């Protein structure tokens, strides 16, 4: 304890940044959600829970909440399953595996904006994707206009963009499973699937939990993809909560209402995280 001064001093910049750029804004956004704050009309009156009653009656908001859930419910399992699958494949010994790792990781370093702009062209009705599947005799729909494809397109573009990060996390975890465990289980006559279920999964379960938490939190923040790929459309079909907040806050400047929406998003993400943390004992073999 005798170095506590040095410790606090060294942690101070991040702590202060956290207080002013995370903690204060969260408190402030909760306060704003009870006001009619709008910089255009100069309004900032305290209006109680009006924003929240409006939110419950706002059919758009309900639709948006539904879309957000659909988005997360497709994105998270697809992303994690594919990332784990690729990590297992690329953990095998063969020539060229580092090249493949780099290939799957490469979209992570590209900006979301650049990645989305390019995909928007690829998925156009007369774009290269429809051309190439046309060669195989498939008459592709307009991926960004014909429901339900716009939502699936946004999800997949996001999956390809960020999957590499999760893959690397899983690879690191797989490399940490001690080889002796497999050896002794083989002496006991376990097959590959049993090994995967009884050794690999329990061992990497803390990483699975962490990746799940980060992927879910990320799924609720998807923004640029929606703005640039579909603009939330057609209709409302791809408008998710974070995009809806952006429109309310920075295009209509209805900051009071946007704050109420932001509080909902915040409660949503935190609630899910706490829930996952609570059930961790059930499926996480080792403590993190």
């Amino acid at each position, binding site marked *: 304890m005798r*170095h*506590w001064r040095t410790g*606090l001093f*060294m*942690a101070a*910049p*991040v*702590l202060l940044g*956290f207080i*002013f750029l*995370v903690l*204060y*804004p*969260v408190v402030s956004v909760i306060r*704003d959600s009870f006001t009619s704050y709008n910089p255009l009309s100069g309004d900032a009156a305290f209006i109680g829970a009006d924003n929240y009653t409006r939110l419950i009656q706002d059919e758009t908001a309900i639709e948006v909440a539904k879309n957000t859930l659909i988005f997360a419910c497709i994105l998270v399992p697809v992303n994690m399953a594919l990332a784990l699958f690729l990590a297992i*494949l690329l953990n*095998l*010994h*063969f020539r060229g595996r*580092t090249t*493949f790792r*780099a*290939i*799957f*990781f*490469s*979209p992570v370093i*590209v*900006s*979301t*904006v*650049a990645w989305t*702009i*390019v995909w928007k*062209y*690829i998925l156009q009705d007369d*774009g290269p994707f429809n*051309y190439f599947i046309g060669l195989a005799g498939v008459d592709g729909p307009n991926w960004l206009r014909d429901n339900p494809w716009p939502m699936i397109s946004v999800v997949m573009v996001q999956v390809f963009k960020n999957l*590499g*990060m999760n893959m*690397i*996390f899983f*690879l*690191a*975890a797989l490399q*940490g499973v001690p*080889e002796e465990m497999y050896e002794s289980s083989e*002496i006991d006559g376990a097959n590959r699937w049993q090994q995967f279920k009884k050794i690999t999964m329990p061992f990497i379960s803390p990483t699975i939990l962490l990746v799940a938490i*980060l992927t879910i*939190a990320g799924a*609720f*923040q998807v*923004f*640029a993809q929606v703005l640039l790929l579909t603009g939330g459309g057609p209709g409302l079909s791809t408008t998710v909560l*974070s995009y809806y907040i952006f429109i309310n806050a*920075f295009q209509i400047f209805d900051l009071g209402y946007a704050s109420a929406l*932001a509080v909902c*998003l*915040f409660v949503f993400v935190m609630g899910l*995280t706490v829930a996952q943390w609570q059930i961790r004992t059930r499926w996480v073999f080792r403590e993190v």
Partner: protein
Amino acid sequence: MRSKTNKRYARRNSKLTGWRLFGIYSLLLVISIPFIFPTWWMFTASLKPIEEVFVFPASLIPNDFQISNYAEVFRLQPFLRQYWNSMFIAILVTIISVTISTMGGYAFARISFKWRSKLFVVLLSALLMPAEVTLIPIFRLMVKSGLSDSFFPIILIPAFGAHAVVGLFLMRQFFLDFPAELEEAAEIDGLSRWRVFTKIALPLSGPALASLAIISFLYSWNLFLEPLVFLTEPNKYTLPVVLPQFTDTYGAPIFNVQLAATSLSVIPVMIVFIMAQRHFIRGITMTGIKS
């Protein structure tokens, strides 16, 4: 029994060959298409005349090279200026956030101070905070203090905000595995805790610092929501904000020029990645989550 086990064990560790290898290669090649094709197509389409971008049959290599698309990028926007903005902001953000995250990460890993573990849990909540939640009050504050149309919030938020906590988390993870004997020896020699950090710990954390620097640089370079909200003058734009704005007077995107600008923003990052990819991925694995 024993020999059979040995054989299976040997198979697990030996290199794949024959049909199994062929199977894995074909599977991986098919899966890699959506990861590689966009970059290839972006670059080739940026060299095509506009009529060729959506022509059937789609060409993988331009029939007609039109380098002038790249000149057009600089004619339509103050692109050099915007490039510099992105670079300048990313460098500043990297310097600041690497410095403070490393100090903080070291403190949380190696120095016990009051409420350390409680503070750490509170800090971790920043990892889950959607940017939209915190942005509204910060926007309000910046407008009030007249700093909204400046680089100030674009540097401040990534350098000191939630991203700094990510950095702190990664560096803490790294310093937790640092051998304690080295530090103890140094302390016996009478070095202060701060000096132990700068003289012993820092010189040995080069690879971790490098990967943190890369992560921070990319984070700032690719930041979109904050510059989109704060910056209003084209002269102050960063690259992600300007890329969607290569449009004609009716607002329709000029495909080939837009893709040329996009290529210009992606290519330097790609080159650095291809050259350093081994260190890059290893660095993330190392600082990343091991347990």
